[in-house]
């Protein structure tokens, strides 16, 4: 009888859920049947909890600038993927794959982000687990 979940007293270990779990009722806020792909430039990345935010400007066909307010996973979850405050900086060229919000036309939940250099070559991409 070991009587320990851990090897010895006063030790500690971290465990991570294997299921895809939800922080809030995702389906109440976002519609997976309304995916959206947005190409634009980064205005600001906010690494905050419970969800990071990414503001992106998209140039519409009319020439008008449309500002998106994207939701990402929690800052802590993104940090574990290596995302830092300077991973995305103002002016960076990105392509966002996301699901639209049910109650706003400029809000969507990001599935993944692709970053390009000035020549249009992909330099990096990262995912944002749905929470």
């Amino acid at each position: 009888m070991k009587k320990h979940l851990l090897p010895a007293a006063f030790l500690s270990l971290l465990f991570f859920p294997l299921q895809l779990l939800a922080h809030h009722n995702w389906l109440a806020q976002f519609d997976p049947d309304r995916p959206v792909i947005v190409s634009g430039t980064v205005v600001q990345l906010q690494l905050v909890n419970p969800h990071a935010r990414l503001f992106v400007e998209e140039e519409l066909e009319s020439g008008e600038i449309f500002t998106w307010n994207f939701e990402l996973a929690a800052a802590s979850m993104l940090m574990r993927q290596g995302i830092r405050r300077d991973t995305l900086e103002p002016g960076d060229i990105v392509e966002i794959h996301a699901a639209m919000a049910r109650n706003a036309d400029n809000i969507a939940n990001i599935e993944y982000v692709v970053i390009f250099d000035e020549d249009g070559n992909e330099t990096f991409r990262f995912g944002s687990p749905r929470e």
Partner: protein
Amino acid sequence: MQFHTHPQPFEIVQAPNRLIILYEASAGVREIFLDGRPLPPLGDPLPTWYGYSVGHWEGDTLVVTTNNFRDDGWLDFNGSPTTDQLVITERFNRISYGRLELDITIDDPGAYTEAFDLRANFRIMPGDSLIEWVCENEASSQYF
């Protein structure tokens, strides 16, 4: 009772006669008493979000029973209700170095006609540590 429904990890700290679980989500702290004390009567101490937990060992399985939950909790983020009659039994099995298996029994006659079971699986995160997680965006609170 949303102990194990967050995507964020948790840390188990084992000390003599008690086990402490630190949940990254909302910086939650849960204390499980292993000193043989019984569960307290319902309503005393004051019901809380995490309830009052006592545990004992059955072989290599840690069995934890928890009562004294608040009357207005949610079982999950879909809003499945719980009442102050809720009693949760958790059976922690560390089935290998890297895996923790958790069998949970939900018994809440105030909300459900019979008790039911579910299983949650976790993997170890060697070399990692908790990251402060505080809800700082009120815009999201309507969906909790």
